[in-house]
């Protein structure tokens, strides 16, 4: 074995095989971090005691190959790949026996793939390799193009071969969308033991059974009138091959049905041997080098990887079909080269360089979305003729090389358009090899000392970096969670319209928001988020992992047996801990221990009994490093990289910083004693006079104010905040705003106990915030103030916020019943519900609710009344609430001391390139004088060029370059263009004669780093989450809290082990579906409803505490001609929202028929809905008109919701102007007066329990 190639951030670690018994080396497996804080373990490194002061050729010569070289697929994080094979059974109808399996001679196979051309008998479908296993038996797919075939709800097919269907009502995407040659991901989840993740892939193979209609059967022509037919999953057509329909018609002569079987990739956490490419008849040609990359090729299907290998004979091989779902790939294909290649390096984008034996470099040209293997080679000469290139490594836009004299070279001028670059620059230092990791960060092995070096100062603007820095062993683990910029996540969705984004309908320009942001379609989200979101916490949390990793290293350091030995050893690596747990006492430390630190911590803390190959003083000699799994942010280089050897690591500190001081006995004792002291010294003496009278305190400053009169503009104002204490000790404050109008001095004032919310409004230029009172909420016209600097704004915001909280006596952690909401800027707000908020008569108007901000940046927050709160970021990262408060701009008193962590989020900014066709030059960027800007936002009204478009605010920084977005609704051509007859119109992805304009969408990712009371729940990225609401007085008997989620891939997941003490839960349980889902919601009686990508709803049967995942899905048709996008279930009510903003209430729900009977239209103009445990209904309304202006995204409360009238009567408008999401599902409090009345309706609700549970 020679070189482990770069671990790539998708989690697959490949290893070039061909091991030698007489050549020992150790493999350190890479653990990957999504979060930019690499652990030394994240570095794949090869440590070899006896290596190589020899030339590369010598090195090759010394390798002897006792067996045939082979490639191994390393223990990827995506442990399980679940696949599904479908074999449709065709039948032909004949006049005698009806449909039968006897086909015409000319017919297709009675068991075939979807094309009908290939014979696929059920028992002949084999697993592709030993690394796959069947998950279930064959069963018939009973859905056709998203519609159930021929039968009522829930009846199971009894056809042979499909007993005990696990997923009888699973939904399938249209067959055509899943060609039998390709694998497509459908879901990802984690098994019940929390051991790992597996994901679904299915290759649909169809077979056909022909039939002829029998005259005795009459077939209704309308789909809804087929109640008498027994559904068996057949679809009918006139003859093969044709278009199949669900309904048997008079002319249906053949029928077919699809058989499905799940399979999954089982070789997780182990090295899986890739079957050899070699033709047995020829001499073996083992692999010599391997490189994995290509996961960020612009707009390629997500999860695809490029795996390149070089054989000893110098030939280059490309592994076909490697992707997340199929980490093995399918076959090796030879790529011709002009010479004998010795080494290869493949970047995450489209760079691929190789070195030739003669010392030149080869550069692959033409790599792109449509041609991952590229088209041709170019040759790049080495820096000097006498010293050829020995080793080359490429990143996104950089090429580093090492020549035979060990000098390091940086290639100038490399980019997508010019992959060859322009010239070599010599770098200081001598290395045996260099490796470019994520974010173009560079790692190397020093020539002299064989230490691992990290290139410091590599930033997007200075790709060559500054200096080499030897890496120390981990001293402590940085807790910052700065996300990896390698994550390809697009922006989150304003109004949860993932379905829209991925669907067929092309919204017109006017649908788009005026922001340059645009909802990112779910489909093109990268798979990697699933895997690489394993974050630092886990590794921190898994002390044993660290030591066992080290164990693995040491075992491997002994001469290994070769491939099989490799395959078995890493299997002990526990990649299992995907959960948030209290950290163990053992700090994680690097396997890459260096002498300066080994004596202090690393080696000293290894479990006893391990055979150590080196003494503590021994200096490990490194031979290979791969930083491909180690995301280092240019500006957030982890501390341990630069750790001084003199500073000793502190186990105590580590555990202290992680373990909140709250849990310590000494702290509890102090709090208790303070309380006792206060009681002792104050209780009987409250009538005593206070020594110090409270006085007024004033803070003044200069701000700008968005004036109330027209023309509205920013005017300079003096601002004074006057705080005073009332007789009861309560504080109140008044904010005075002094302004001058027409030479006259005037002021307005706001009582801070009247303020309902303070919203930061960060934009490119202004550091401003809005201040709402109930009156101004009704007017849709807040007081807007802007500060000169961000610091100034934060100071004011924090002070005003604190004053508001003081005057309302709100501080500390929000109550478990709190109502959470999120603005479209990702700011999080929380409100304490007063008991009369949900009163039957005279409920508290919701414009009087007081909202305070929580630190962090999220797209969705969901809560339940036991204090379990989950959030989802724009990059689909899942976060759990830690119980802290503050963070972000709230420092000091407004923030809790502990439980505040760094949080990051990534979203995309979109601009459009517009062109008009003219007869002379074709499409040009010169439009008509009346045309829109040639570079614009989605509406075309704002000019947005690549250069001028800035991140949404100063808090955001660019983390990628502009790239064409191919996944826009309506489709694009190969260059990303969409065509239309004129602006603005609906666009389509192909050119017709009538099209005179075209546009294409460019996306650029930006990233925010902030802080807040949130911890990441790795590793699965989520699109939706729902926590079971607790009705008042329910006793769950200690059973865990049900939490359902939909992953960003559309898989439905169920979280196990969630409790008030462990809100993050322990592991994911996958719930099978036949198509991607978009939304899920669980009601108080364990009614789980979900919405699939095709817009229909599903009800999950038999969900109960003992059966958390339920048993089967029941299909619920969507309202006529509408595609649903969100569902929310309260205690009994079920509300759903469609893509056109219509809100629907499910009617006819009874305990015995929890699916209900029909949808009743409740309202339009709705963006998002949340139904709570009192069946209260809250929405975010699209547009609400106030007396002063219009606001988009307004919190609204449904009034008049009664048990017998669950759809309510009207809306009460609350805070608005950019609100995006609300969760009232934690609020189960109701004024006691009316709650007694509420007992009655809750009685039948209880009765619902047995039926659903």
């Amino acid at each position: 074995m020679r070189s482990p190639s770069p671990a790539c951030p998708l989690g697959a670690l490949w290893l070039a095989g061909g091991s030698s018994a007489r050549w020992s080396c150790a493999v350190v497996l890479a653990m990957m971090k999504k979060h930019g804080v690499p652990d030394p373990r994240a570095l794949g490194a090869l440590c070899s005691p006896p290596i190589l002061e020899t030339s590369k050729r010598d090195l090759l010569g010394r390798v002897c190959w006792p067996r045939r070289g082979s490639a191994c697929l390393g223990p990827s994080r995506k442990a399980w790949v679940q696949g599904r094979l479908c074999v449709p059974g065709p039948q032909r109808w004949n006049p005698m026996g009806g449909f039968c399996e006897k086909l015409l001679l000319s017919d297709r196979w009675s068991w075939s793939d979807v094309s009908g051309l290939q014979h696929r008998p059920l028992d002949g479908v084999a697993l592709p390799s030993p690394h796959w296993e069947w998950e279930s038996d064959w069963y018939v797919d009973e859905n056709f193009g998203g519609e159930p075939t021929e039968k009522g709800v829930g009846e199971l097919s009894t056809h042979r071969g499909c007993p005990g269907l696990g997923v009888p009502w699973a939904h399938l995407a249209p067959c055509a969308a899943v060609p039998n040659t390709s694998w497509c991901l459908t879901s990802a989840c984690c098994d019940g033991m929390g051991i790992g993740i597996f994901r679904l892939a299915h290759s649909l193979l169809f077979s056909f059974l022909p039939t002829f209609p029998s005259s005795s059967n009459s077939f209704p022509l309308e789909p809804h009138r087929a109640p008498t037919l027994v559904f068996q999953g057949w679809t009918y057509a006139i003859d093969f091959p044709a278009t199949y329909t669900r309904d048997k018609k008079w002319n249906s002569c053949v029928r077919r049905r699809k058989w499905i079987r799940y399979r999954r990739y089982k070789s997780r956490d182990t090295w899986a041997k890739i079957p050899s490419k070699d033709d047995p008849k020829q001499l073996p040609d083992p692999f010599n080098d391997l490189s994995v990359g290509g996961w960020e090729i612009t707009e390629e299907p997500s999860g695809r990887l490029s795996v390149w290998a070089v054989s000893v004979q110098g030939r280059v091989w490309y592994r076909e079909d490697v992707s997340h779902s199929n980490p093995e790939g399918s076959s090796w294909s030879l790529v011709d080269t002009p010479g004998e290649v010795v080494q290869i390096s493949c970047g995450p984008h489209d760079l691929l360089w190789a070195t030739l034996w003669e010392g030149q470099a080869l550069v692959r040209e033409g790599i792109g979305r449509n041609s991952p293997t590229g088209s041709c080679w170019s040759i790049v000469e080495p820096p000097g003729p006498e010293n050829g290139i020995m080793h080359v490594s490429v990143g996104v836009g950089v090429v580093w090389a090492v020549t035979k004299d060990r000098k390091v070279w940086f290639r100038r001028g490399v980019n997508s358009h010019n992959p060859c670059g322009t010239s070599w620059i010599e770098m200081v230092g001598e290395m045996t090899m260099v490796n470019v990791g994520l974010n173009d960060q560079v790692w190397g092995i020093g020539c002299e000392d064989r230490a691992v070096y990290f290139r410091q100062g590599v930033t997007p603007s200075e790709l060559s970096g500054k200096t080499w820095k030897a890496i120390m062993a981990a001293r402590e683990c940085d807790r910052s969670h700065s996300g990896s910029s390698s994550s390809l996540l697009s922006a989150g969705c304003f109004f949860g319209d993932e379905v829209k984004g991925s669907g067929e309908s092309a919204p017109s320009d006017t649908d788009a928001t005026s922001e340059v942001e645009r909802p990112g379609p779910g489909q093109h989200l990268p798979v990697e988020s699933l895997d690489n979101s394993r974050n630092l916490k886990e590794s921190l949390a898994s002390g044993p992992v660290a030591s066992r990793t080290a164990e693995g290293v040491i075992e491997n350091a002994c001469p290994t047996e070769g491939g099989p030995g490799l395959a078995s050893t890493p299997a002990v690596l526990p990649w299992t801990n995907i959960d948030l747990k209290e950290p163990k006492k053992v700090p994680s430390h690097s396997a890459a221990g260096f002498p300066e630190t080994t004596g202090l911590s690393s080696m000293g803390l290894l479990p006893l009994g391990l055979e150590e190959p080196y003494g503590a003083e021994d200096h490990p000699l490194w031979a290979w490093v791969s930083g491909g799994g180690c995301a280092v942010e240019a500006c957030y280089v982890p501390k341990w990289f630069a750790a001084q050897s003199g500073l000793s690591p502190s186990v105590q500190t580590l555990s202290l910083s992680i373990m909140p001081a709250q849990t310590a006995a000494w702290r509890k004792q102090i709090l208790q004693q303070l309380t006792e002291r206060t009681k002792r010294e104050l209780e009987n003496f409250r009538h005593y006079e206070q020594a110090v009278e409270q006085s007024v305190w004033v803070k003044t400053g200069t701000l700008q104010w968005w004036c109330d009169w027209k023309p509205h503009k920013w005017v300079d104002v003096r601002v004074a905040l006057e705080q005073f204490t009332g007789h009861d000790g309560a504080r109140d404050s008044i904010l005075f705003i002094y302004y001058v109008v027409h030479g006259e001095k005037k002021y307005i004032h706001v009582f801070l106990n009247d303020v309902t919310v303070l919203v930061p409004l960060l934009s490119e230029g202004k550091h401003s915030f809005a201040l709402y009172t109930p009156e101004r909420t009704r007017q849709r016209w807040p007081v807007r103030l802007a500060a000169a600097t961000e610091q100034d704004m934060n100071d004011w915001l924090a002070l005003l916020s604190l004053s508001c909280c003081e005057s309302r006596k709100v501080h500390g952690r929000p109550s478990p019943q709190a109502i959470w909401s999120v603005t479209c800027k990702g700011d999080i707000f929380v409100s304490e519900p007063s008991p009369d908020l949900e009163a039957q008569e005279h409920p508290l108007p919701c414009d009087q609710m007081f909202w305070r901000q929580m630190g962090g940046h999220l797209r969705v927050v969901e809560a339940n009344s036991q204090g379990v709160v989950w959030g989802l970021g724009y990059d689909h990262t899942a976060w759990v609430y830690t119980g802290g408060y503050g963070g972000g701009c709230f420092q000091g008193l407004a923030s809790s001391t502990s439980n505040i962590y760094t949080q990051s989020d990534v979203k995309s900014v979109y601009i459009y390139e517009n062109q008009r066709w003219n007869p002379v030059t074709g499409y040009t960027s010169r439009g008509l004088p009346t045309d829109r800007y040639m570079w614009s936002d989605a509406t075309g009204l704002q000019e947005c060029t690549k250069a001028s478009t800035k991140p949404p605010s100063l808090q955001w920084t660019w983390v990628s370059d502009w790239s064409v977005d191919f996944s826009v609704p309506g489709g694009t051509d190969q260059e990303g263009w969409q065509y239309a007859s004129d602006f603005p119109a609906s666009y389509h992805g192909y050119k017709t004669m009538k099209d005179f304009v075209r546009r294409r969408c460019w996306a650029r990712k930006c990233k925010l780093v902030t802080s807040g009371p949130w911890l990441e729940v790795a590793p699965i990225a989520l699109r939706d989450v729902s926590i079971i609401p607790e009705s008042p007085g329910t006793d769950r008997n200690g059973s865990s809290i049900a939490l359902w989620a939909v992953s960003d891939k559309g898989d439905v997941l169920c979280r196990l082990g969630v409790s008030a003490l462990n809100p993050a839960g322990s592991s994911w349980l996958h719930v099978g579906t036949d198509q991607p889902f978009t939304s899920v919601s669980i009601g108080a009686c364990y009614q789980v409803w979900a919405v699939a990508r095709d817009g229909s709803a599903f009800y999950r049967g038999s969900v109960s505490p003992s059966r958390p995942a339920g048993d089967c899905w029941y299909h619920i048709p969507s309202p006529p001609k509408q595609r649903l996008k969100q569902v929310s279930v309260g205690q009994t009510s079920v509300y759903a929202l469609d893509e056109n903003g219509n809100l629907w209430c499910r009617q006819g729900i009874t305990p015995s028929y929890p699916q209900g009977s029909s949808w009743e239209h409740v309202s339009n103009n709705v963006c998002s809905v949340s139904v709570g445990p009192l069946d209260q209904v809250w929405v975010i309304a699209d547009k609400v008109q106030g007396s002063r202006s219009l606001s988009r995204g307004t919190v609204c409360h449904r009034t008049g919701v009664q048990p017998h009238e669950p759809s309510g009567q009207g809306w009460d408008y609350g805070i608005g102007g950019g609100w995006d999401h609300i969760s009232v599902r934690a609020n189960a409090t109701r004024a006691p007066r009316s709650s007694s009345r509420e007992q009655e309706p809750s009685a039948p609700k209880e009765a619902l329990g047995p039926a659903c549970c």
Partner: protein
Amino acid sequence: MTDDKDVLRDVWFGRIPTCFTLYQDEITEREAEPYYLLLPRVSYLTLVTDKVKKHFQKVMRQEDISEIWFEYEGTPLKWHYPIGLLFDLLASSSALPWNITVHFKSFPEKDLLHCPSKDVIEAHFMSCMKEADALKHKSQVINEMQKKDHKQLWMGLQNDRFDQFWAINRKLMEYPAEENGFRYIPFRIYQTTTERPFIQKLFRPVAADGQLHTLGDLLKEVCPSAIAPEDGEKKNQVMIHGIEPMLETPLQWLSEHLSYPDNFLHISIIPQPTD
């Protein structure tokens, strides 16, 4: 869940019910009623006793009034010690309210500093703050502050404004992320049993091996007599702000949360009450 911020609040708003009585030998025109007041633990006697002064001066002749001073059970009370410290050290075992005798004559020159005006208290307070920051941050934080920040600290204390004070004071409680605490912990240990006013030494919050020092470590180092031998009987109470933190409490945390406004941990070692 309570947060550490609540500790700050509890500490700040600690009050000692006090009964001021005029010394019997003071000459009055009519009988002086005792005066009852809730004294802030974190403040200074002369800063919060304007009302007391006014109350007793009403019954006295102008010529009999010189500088006011206070005494408890024969011990003159040092105004430049925080009130909470004085109480813990001298009176924590006695019943409440705390009975303080007010004097207007015979100023005990050898025991007390003169306090002619609030400026003197301010100067003393600010010099303590500066000393504490010298220990914690080599004075870097306090020196970087503006004059108005210093004023805000003082005004916060004088007006008993918790948030006004802590808006600035929190900066003094920060430390570089790469460190595990302050450079040295500003502390003073007071004992009634010794002549020495207090013990103050350089002591780091983190040991050389990275372990966080605890209150117990500190006492072992600088005042071993204060802690009982492992098997022996507990002879002393270690008291801060009227409570006895466990000896396992990390010193850094104590310094951040239980320091007086002057940024010092004032620790009282008092004999264990016998009852």
